[in-house]
């Protein structure tokens, strides 16, 4: 019995450490992440089925606001272009919109405010696990897209940002056209009845309320409509996506 017991103990201990080492080997292999990644496509399709693209994120009340809306990632972009804009209180800021559009245009924050001014109180869910609730003021991205005229072959909206996570590696993000046209998808210039704080992405950031925090690009410099993002940076559609995070950040 003791033989059997010590054998079992050895077997279980050995198997556990083998499995763990095996999992780490698979994580670092070229094929492992590709297999595991199959779940991403399944998540996207099934979630689109269960929660249609028209489904709305819950909107909260002023009583639900986070006392402090925390900042993650860059809190102060150091690029000269951004510092120059900041020095002038963003008065020279122009959002560039181009790519597969009929009329490439640029917008000041006041231009955007003239299109419309909407507010929403939604929850921000970070991929790390925390949540915060903020009141966002901005313009629906769909209205900006209507101004420039999106060409039929455009499939994605790419957001190029002023902040560099590492020198020479600017932050960027992308969403597909249905997500970009969702009524809760905003280009936001304000948070909690004030201009957007620098740590939260001033002068303009993206809000896609049904996806995780890393999708909510801050410090947007330029919007580009593309039919594929394979040629941009690492080719995965976003800064964190190039480091192995899912492009579809609905879960």
């Amino acid at each position, binding site marked *: 019995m003791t033989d059997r017991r010590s054998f079992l103990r050895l077997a279980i201990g050995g198997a556990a450490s083998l499995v763990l080492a095996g999992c780490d080997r698979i994580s670092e292999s070229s094929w492992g992440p590709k297999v*595991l990644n199959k*779940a991403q496509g399944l998540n996207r399709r099934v979630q689109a089925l269960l929660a249609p693209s028209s489904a709305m994120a819950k909107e909260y009340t002023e009583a*639900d606001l986070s006392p*402090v809306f925390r900042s993650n990632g860059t809190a102060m972009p150091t690029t000269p272009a951004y510092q120059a804009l900041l020095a002038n209180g963003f008065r020279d800021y122009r959002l560039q919109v181009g790519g597969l559009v009929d009329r490439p245009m640029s917008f000041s924050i006041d231009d955007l405010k003239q299109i419309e001014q909407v507010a929403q109180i939604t929850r921000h869910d970070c991929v790390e696990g925390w949540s915060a609730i903020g009141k966002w003021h901005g313009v629906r991205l769909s209205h900006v897209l209507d101004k420039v005229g999106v060409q039929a072959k455009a499939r994605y909206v790419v957001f190029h940002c002023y902040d560099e996570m590492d020198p020479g590696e600017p932050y960027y993000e992308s969403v597909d056209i249905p997500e970009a046209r969702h009524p809760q998808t905003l280009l936001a210039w304000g948070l909690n009845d004030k201009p957007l704080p620098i740590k939260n992405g001033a002068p303009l950031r993206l809000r896609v309320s049904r*996806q995780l925090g890393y999708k909510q690009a801050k410090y947007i410099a330029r919007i580009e409509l593309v039919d594929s993002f394979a040629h941009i940076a690492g080719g995965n559609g976003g800064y964190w996506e190039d480091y*192995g995070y899912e492009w579809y*950040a609905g*879960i």
Partner: protein
Amino acid sequence: MNSPSLVDTTPDTAMTAPSRGRLVYRHRWPIRLMHWINVIALSILFMSGLQIFNAHPSLSLGNRSDPGKEILALDARMGADGKLVGVTRIGRHEFVTTGVLGVSAGPDGQPQVRGFPSWLTIPGPRWLAMGRQWHFFFAWVFVLNGLCYLGYSLATRHFQRDLVPTKQDWRGIGRSIVDHIKFKHPHGEEALRYNILQRLAYLVVILVFGIGIVLMGLAMSPRMDAVLSPLVEAVGGRQSARTIHFIIAWGFVAFVLIHVFEVIITGAFNQLRGMITGWYRIDETPTPGEAGEATENRHD
């Protein structure tokens, strides 16, 4: 209503070694297969889940994670001697847990700030993106396997017959509790039947833990919350859902510990053989004709 005999006695064992009892075909292959798939899926889900938890190693209630309002936090601070101290806070109580929680050895062996230690996480090093990949892949394995299990065991009436307690089971609950406390287990034919505590444990694990952990996982998905927000609000908010998800995960661990303990004290080898090959030995010599009279004994 007699179902055909499902108890097979292997001829060789029954004839050559009657004193050692007889082998009974207890678990059908789909149940065995789904059991072991579940073992793999749950282990990987648990450990990759702890990797994900480590990215924000604290728990809150409600919809927000306001700093200072956590109900549980695995944290680190610098000790007076300049060494990292791992701290676990539960509400307002603080425990030093250096080496296991808050601070534990990193890949280079040096103390590192991390919620759960690397030997409990998949992957071992801090790697949230990869932890998520493992978690979501095996979440699908767990869900599809669980649906197959429910469909199969409802269709074969395994669920209704072997898991749902009978009136007699309920009447025997007092005795069953006493028996469990005394580690007294039934022998012979009686060992083939799930007792009331076993039935309740399996039902709670399958219906409450299994379904609950999947729903709480989905309640953390911002896209799903567009349609699930009544559920999210019903449990108190997204952070509450995250906390419940975490608690159920440890509920599974508690179940597995008790389950494995019971397997060991009732004969680890015999039980493992039962769940691997299907054949389970009962310590009783068969009387002639008994095998033919026995009714449903298979637990699958």
